[in-house]
């Protein structure tokens, strides 16, 4: 499809609509084209191999929109003159492996940093917050999280590992870093090798270091107990000049304490002691 393609003026925020042009939003993992077509908003996207460390230069061939992409159409309000593109967290929890499994003794705590691939949320500027369409910036695989195949939940799975030090994401503007602190408040050691992160209560902030989410604290109290998760409701202290870009999918206040299966702990060390 031969159309005039213009890169979006700002990565996050409002994009004026109108005219025959199509707009391009791109990151190393996805390219999204959108524009008005016969009074409809057309949104199409394709995923890329996430091999490049740098953002690809906008080349001439991007003016030609690939033929084989799927288009999604919607009719906007007559008053809508612009649409806003915002980063939001995934609509399901995500399962991450840890950089290396660690044995946490009772009373110990650890901070890890998780790279969250945000989703692009298109909203109608005339109805703030009214979602038109959402696109994950990376093709997501799913996994099962539970004690057995009959008891658990389907969640997303990412190959990126939770790291012990803050991750550099300047070349990946769609990645939000989520700092997670895990406390072992049980009476026995626990082997931590993967984290089940409920994302629905996370906000996304734009900072000088890139996108970040709220700080998450997880307290493990025993293998038979559910871990408690606290979401700070604000950007982590190390983030400079935070600007709130998107609110949580499930908003219940600034500081929340939810009970959820938050940390997947393999219980081989827990068998050593009683963790009441």
């Amino acid at each position, binding site marked *: 499809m031969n159309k005039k393609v213009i890169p979006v003026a700002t990565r996050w925020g409002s994009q004026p609509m109108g005219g025959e042009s199509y707009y391009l939003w791109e990151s190393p993992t996805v390219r999204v084209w959108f524009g008005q077509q016969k009074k409809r908003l057309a949104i199409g996207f394709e995923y890329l191999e996430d091999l490049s460390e740098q953002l690809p230069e906008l080349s001439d061939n991007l003016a030609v929109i690939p033929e084989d992409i799927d288009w999604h159409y919607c009719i906007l309000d007559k008053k809508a003159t612009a649409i806003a593109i915002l980063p939001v967290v995934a609509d399901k929890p995500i399962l991450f492996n840890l950089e290396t499994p660690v044995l946490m003794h009772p009373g110990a705590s650890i901070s890890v940093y998780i790279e969250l691939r945000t989703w692009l949320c298109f909203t109608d500027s005339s109805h703030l917050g009214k979602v038109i369409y959402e696109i994950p910036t990376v093709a997501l*695989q*799913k*996994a*099962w999280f539970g004690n057995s*195949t*009959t008891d*658990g939940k*389907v969640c997303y799975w990412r190959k990126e590992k939770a790291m012990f030090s803050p991750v550099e994401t300047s070349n990946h503007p769609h990645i939000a870093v989520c700092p997670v602190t895990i406390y072992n408040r049980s009476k026995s050691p626990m082997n931590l090798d993967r984290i089940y992160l409920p994302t629905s209560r996370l906000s996304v902030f734009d900072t000088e270091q890139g996108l970040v989410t709220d700080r998450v604290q997880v307290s493990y109290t025993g293998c038979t107990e559910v871990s408690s998760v606290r979401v700070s409701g604000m950007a982590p202290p190390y983030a400079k000049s935070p600007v709130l870009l998107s609110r949580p999918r499930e908003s219940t206040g600034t500081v929340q304490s939810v009970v959820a299966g938050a940390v997947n702990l393999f219980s081989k060390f827990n068998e050593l002691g009683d963790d009441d």
Partner: protein
Amino acid sequence: MAIDFAFQRIINFLSTELVQHYSKALLLFALGIPLSIFIANRAQRYLGQRYTVQHGLIAGQLFRWGGCILFVTAGLNQLGFSLTPLLGAAGVVGVGIGIASQTSASNIISGLFILIEEPFTIGDVIAVEQTTGEVLSIDLLSVKVRSFSNEFIRIPHETLLKNKVTNFTRFPIRRVEIDIPIAYKEDVGEVKKLIYKIIEEDLRILKIPEPFISFKGFGDSAVDLTLLVWVEKANYFAVKNALPENIKYCFDKENIEIPLPHIKLLQSEQNHSHSIVAGGFPDIS
């Protein structure tokens, strides 16, 4: 004077016990039955949202029929019907009906057991004997099922209680099993790597529980492998259909042979051996 007299007659008439009873009965019928239906609908909706659609349906039926029977009985009582002979007659009739409708009674009792045991709920996909389909409703005597070819099937509760019932959608995830025969000449390790690559690219296949390729055995014509992958129940049939097709496509691309059954005939007298490939012409050497 005449008006006063007429008015007095009306007042006298209305104050008679008979009219009062009729009025009460009318009120009980007119208000009680709609009230029962209203409460039943509310209970059905509330319990359906809070628990399951099945729970809502049961509660709705109980409130609807229980309430109606209660108000109709009270109304009849106001009209002067004595319920004692009615109950007596109902007992006699009940014995008669009971003898005549053992099957129905059996279905009702079986239905109660099914409701208590809850092997499936509305919307589940079940298989009973030769029938497979989606459960539409669980009623007094039977379960209504819609088959995948859109046939309406009524299964009596008794059948469900006596036979093996398979619920395909009880749990959120299911395992897809695909038999993959490969020729003896192929490198099993390399074939496994290719299969894992195919699985990796299919986003419908769950990463955990991990996909697994099990060695089934040395077959007559092939090394038999079984691929075991887990998917969400909604994707089961899509993956079960698409994955073998994708594997076949990749095998063809990589020149990996999926062998046909071979039969080798040896004719020692003529010192000739004939090998016959099923589905093709014999290769005479």
